[in-house]
């Protein structure tokens, strides 16, 4: 199976809600560069079907996870505008396989950020807003099990996102230690703080700008950057209510 066929397979797995076997099992020689190519083809397929880019999402942003796979750079995926969930809305289960949710920090830029050589100060200067957010991930692989190459090819499991309304930029110095609590049907299931993301989620934006620069791309103003999961992901099923509480704002949804 060539990279084009793999991209189509994964896109169809998403559209048909039918998980597939890991690519690394079908094609043992499947490499990281293949994986990146498949992600790119998949995004082009989505665009050809009328999808618009809403932003980027970062993955592999915890030091523990990085050590597990022995990769010390975050990975990225495309977020499609059609997958945005309105604040405190409904997450439709009829378009999902085995979804999970993670609390995240979303960053929106007021001016384009173009690498290489973007520094943390460049990031801070370019920020329009920092918002509480959550991401829905939903692997297109059976059992939510994959290798690094598989998950990159699968657009890093991207499946949806919600962005809050309270701009945390005035409290940027306190961001890393804001306490975040995830509840499922009222019970606390995870807690965390943004420091879980590379020690500082703004480093994730810096990393994205510099990695896009390798392909002569930038982060345009106005796009949303989801910087990486703050806690373990939390699975949910039809009927569950998920709430992500920040000191400043609560984001919630009901799975229907």
């Amino acid at each position, binding site marked *: 199976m060539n990279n084009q066929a793999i991209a189509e397979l994964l896109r169809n797995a998403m559209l048909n809600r039918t998980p597939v076997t890991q690519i690394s099992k079908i094609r043992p020689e499947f490499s990281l560069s293949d994986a990146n190519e498949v992600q790119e083809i998949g995004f082009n397929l989505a665009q050809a079907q009328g999808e618009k880019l809403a932003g980027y999402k970062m993955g592999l942003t*915890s*030091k*523990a996870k990085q050590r597990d796979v022995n990769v010390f750079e975050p990975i990225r995926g495309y977020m499609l505008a059609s997958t945005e969930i309105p604040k405190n809305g409904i997450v439709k289960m009829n378009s999902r396989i085995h979804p999970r949710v993670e609390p995240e920090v979303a960053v929106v830029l007021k001016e384009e950020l173009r690498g290489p050589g973007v520094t943390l100060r460049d990031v801070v200067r370019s920020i329009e807003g920092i918002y509480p957010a959550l991401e829905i991930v939903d692997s297109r692989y059976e059992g939510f099990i994959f290798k690094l190459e598989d998950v990159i090819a699968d657009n890093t499991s991207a499946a949806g996102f919600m962005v809050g309304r309270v701009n945390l930029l005035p409290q940027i110095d*306190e961001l*890393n*230690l*804001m*306490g*975040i*609590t995830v509840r499922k049907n009222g*019970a*606390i*299931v995870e*807690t*965390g*703080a*943004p*420091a*879980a993301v590379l*020690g500082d989620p703004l480093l994730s934006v810096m990393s994205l700008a510099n990695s896009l620069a390798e392909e002569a791309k930038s982060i345009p103003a106005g796009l949303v950057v989801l910087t990486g999961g*703050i*806690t373990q992901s939390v699975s949910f099923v039809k009927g569950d209510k998920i709430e992500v*509480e*920040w*000191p400043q704002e609560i984001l919630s949804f009901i799975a229907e």
Partner: protein
Amino acid sequence: MALSQPQLLEIADKLDKAEATCQPIPPLVETYPALEEKDAYQIQWMVASRALRAQRHLLGYKIGLTSLEAQKHFRVFEPDYGHLFDSMSINEDSEIDLSQLIQPKIEGEIAFVLGKDLRGPGITPAQVMRAIDYVTTSFEIIDSRIQNWKITARDTIADNGSSSRFVLSGMKRRLEGLSLPHLGMALYKNNDVVVTGSGAAVMGNPLNAVAFLANTLAKHDRGLLEGQVILSGSIGGMVTMQAGDHFSVEIQKLGRVSVRCKGKLNE
């Protein structure tokens, strides 16, 4: 079918010796299947009474099993507690000698120091709030005297809540204006963030854990005293300590504390 007094004394001896020699013992519930929770607390108090007779000072208490996750894991529906003695206190930014420990793990916690006595029953979180002098960041080092951490709730209760050492930050914050559930914590191992959490991880609010402690001690006609330290419960999980490791923990608005491991663990 509770244990007999001689059996309780025997277990207290074994736990004392395990700690002194760094030689852990088999799970108590395997050796003494009839061990009940109230026996376990009696053993804990026997060991604590000996410490008091040996001129050690009781500085306060630790609360454990405060997260839903821990309670599910141990199949219990309430927290437990342990005693904190002066011999367990470590200065901030100093070294901890691993050669005196068995299988230590470290946890970040919100700690309180009381400005008034607090005696149950019927203590509410609002009363707890009024009794607190200040709040600060702390580390608790837990170190089971039971082999390979193979513990049930009864094992850890008898074993003083598995408590071993604690470190308080020098920063003192008044409770006024703080929303404890919303405070974030980051625990660093050798400069990498390895655990994060929020104050809500502790029974929704660490004040709930202190109210539990005051009311539980009241059942045995004991109270919390002015000046005592309370470690309110782990936020976000524990981390194994190894030779040469450096740990620090920061809680929003409550300061940072750090500790460095020296010496080698007993193999």
